[in-house]
């Protein structure tokens, strides 16, 4: 049986990679995918603690996180499409204001 701390360490590493991607990437879609990576790292921590504490609530939280991530992806990608129509660019340097 793998100790729960190894799951948590993996979760922290994935979260840090998500933060790094969010900061260094210039393409807005890749930045968005880095956010998904962070959400998944947190999900892994939820599941690991759920197993560690013998409580199913953690897994339910993961369901809610997945639902919110789906809603976020739908709205966020729609915003990206709307911005691309007016700016003709996907670089975050050009997308510095939300006003169309």
């Amino acid at each position, binding site marked *: *049986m*793998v*100790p*729960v*701390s*190894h*799951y*948590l*360490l*993996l979760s922290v*590493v*994935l979260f840090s*990679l*998500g*933060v*790094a*991607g969010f*900061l*260094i*990437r*210039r*393409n807005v*879609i*890749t930045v*968005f*995918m880095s956010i*998904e*990576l962070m959400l*998944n790292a947190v*999900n*892994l921590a939820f*599941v*690991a603690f759920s*197993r*560690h*504490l*013998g*409580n199913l*609530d953690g*897994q*339910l939280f993961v*369901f*809610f996180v*997945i*639902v919110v*991530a*789906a*809603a*976020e*992806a*739908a*709205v966020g*990608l*729609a*915003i*990206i*499409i709307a911005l691309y*129509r007016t700016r003709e660019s*996907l*670089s975050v340097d050009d997308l510095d204001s939300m006003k169309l």
Partner: protein
Amino acid sequence: MAALFYIVAGVAVLAALSVVLQRTPVYSALSLIVVLCSLAVLYLLIGAEFLAVIQVIVYAGAIMVLFVLVIMLLNARRETPGDRSRLAPLLGAPLLAVFLAEFFFVIVKQLPRGSESSAAPLDSGPAAIGGLLFRNYVLPFEVTSVLILVAILGAVVLAKKEL
């Protein structure tokens, strides 16, 4: 079991690195699908079978398809290096290292070797999850449905031709 965990964890970390380091968005998206699938395998190993299935269907299936479709729709190419200052990575890398070290310290200190869970394996099938969802978490569940509705409407309004 343990060996499988370390193999899959290694695949997940490598694929996550690839998500961050690839300059072409579609490569990042494909790497992210690998991360999501390896996380599903980890969920299976830890005994969250239903969650693993949902992860593959909803995340790797639905959400990532949306990402790949948008990447193709907008014809997102290899990103060109900007003319920004190099200060952000230079300052960010040590901060990220501190963040990692802090977490490693806390986790190793709080959960030393041998503090393995004594909890019995959970029944995390659809019946148990559904029972909990509709008994203890009815209100969040209903709010979630409103959230999804708002997201659908918002996406439709935003993606209309004339805004």
